């Protein structure tokens, strides 16, 4: 069985590399996008993506919350995990079945959540 595929959306390269390392070491495959537009391109071309792990604060027109809402609308089965340094992220901002981690997040908790979503 192939590894579950997680798309990581994070504009800060260091944090993106870090997330990719953590998630790959936990037994997932990853794709890395630096913006919402890049993320949409991956989603349009790769149907294997099971989970999107996205930062909320992204450059350009579309932030992580709008990206998540768009994914929930266009690709309903995909699971969504969001992260941000902002304190206030209300439940209303999160998509249905969305999970949120405040930065800096705990690697163990993130991996546990990803595992529960990939089954």
């Amino acid at each position: 069985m192939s590894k579950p595929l997680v798309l990581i959306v994070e504009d800060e390269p260091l944090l993106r590399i870090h997330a990719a390392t953590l998630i790959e070491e936990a037994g997932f495959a990853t794709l890395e996008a630096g913006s919402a537009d890049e993320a949409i391109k991956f989603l349009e071309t790769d149907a294997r993506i099971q989970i999107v792990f996205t930062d909320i604060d992204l450059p350009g027109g579309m932030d992580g919350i709008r990206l998540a809402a768009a994914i929930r609308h266009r690709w309903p089965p995909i699971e969504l995990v969001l992260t941000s340094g902002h304190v206030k992220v209300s439940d209303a901002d999160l998509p249905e079945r969305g999970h949120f981690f405040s930065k800096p997040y705990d690697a163990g908790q993130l991996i546990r959540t990803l595992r529960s979503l990939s089954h």
Partner: protein
Amino acid sequence: MSDASRLAALRSYNLLDTPPEPQFDDVVQLARTICRAPVALVSLVAADRQWFKARAGIDLVETPLDESVCVHAIKERELLVVPDLTLDPRTRDNPLVTGPPHIRFYAGAVLRAADGEALGALCVIDTVPRPDGLSGEQTASLLALARQTMVLLHYRRAAGAEHAQEAGGVGTFEIDVASGTLFPSPEFCRIFGLPPLHSIDADKVEVLVLSEDRAQISNTATRRTGDAVLEVQYRIHRPMDGALRWVARRGEFERDGTGRALRFSGMVQDITERKHLEAEQQTLNEELSHRMKNTLAMVDAIATQTLRHAADQPAVVAFGRRIQALARAHDVLLGRAMAGASVRATIAAVVGVIADAARFDLAGPDVDIGTRSVLSFSLLVHELTTNAVKYGALSRDGGRVSVMWRTQIDDSSSNQAPVFVLEWRERGGPTVVPPERRGFGSRLIASGLSGTGRSEVRYLTDGVSAEFRAPLAFVSG
């Protein structure tokens, strides 16, 4: 009375170095005529000089205190008369006596404010001695003129205060509870965008308040029962221009002998600018906090990546969690606009990083930790929680932690300063033993609250029991 309080009273009148005003010029002319003296002055005695608000028969506008006779007059109850200034030891060496204009006679009536402070004197001066001083009529007139001068000064200050009220945007009002009639000051009308009015129905003002803010303002019912909230802030739509303004209102009830509310009066202030500044400050705080937490996330990422192949992986995990504990404490701080954090909220946020908050019992009064102490406090709580999860009560099903805090007066210290006490008690865990190695965590715990070192950790058979003490001033600072 001290000279400081006397000078403060003088300052409150805002007189020094102001231009001449005709009403005070009239006073000195009258004094001069009545006392048949060549010179009359309204002299105010400041810290380093006497300054003349009004003068007749002399060109000086002020003199140093060693040339002042009024400085001696203000020590009297109401009047100082010196028939021959060359004979009085207080004045015989005064340069105005020994040199030109060679003054010889002085009579000064003290200008005394309502609170008893002497501001200066209304005085008459002659260049020839007057062995008989002033007549009875002249004395009575000079005293009466001094009292009139104080009345003038009082009104002058009150008028100035009204001016200041306008500048500061503070309006006043009074509502007659029975009739619901509101009597506004001119500034009240200006703040509410109303034409200048003598009176208006209170409910005509209440409708200017935004409907979502109307629940908190006073109304006919809450004024009758005397239950209206005394300090409120609300938004109004100013009828003149439709502008949205923030208003702060402070009121108080005047009641009859039976406690029934008769009048509701107070002041209002336009605080729109302040509200905008607060909102900007909050945005800035959030932006800064966001950047700081991103930086902490980067530090965590760098450390984890750098130490990926290090032998001691639990240490890397511990590092990441300490960073997270700091970030959580920061969240709590930000929630209160950086003005401190509550003990309860901080503990709850920090233990939640690695443990199930439902296994904690928190009990204590509402106490705030200051911005300086909250980060070290959160690290201390984090280390205790880490130990509980690894070795203590939380390493087993059913184990619990209770955290209690209180403030008390420390009997052992001589200065009776309040002390903050934090107790950490684990129950239902395995038998615990003191750690063999003294790592960063146990050093943090030993250093106690705010690094005061007043910590006591006991390893009891059913769990750790720890107590920390620090002067409340350290914790809330």
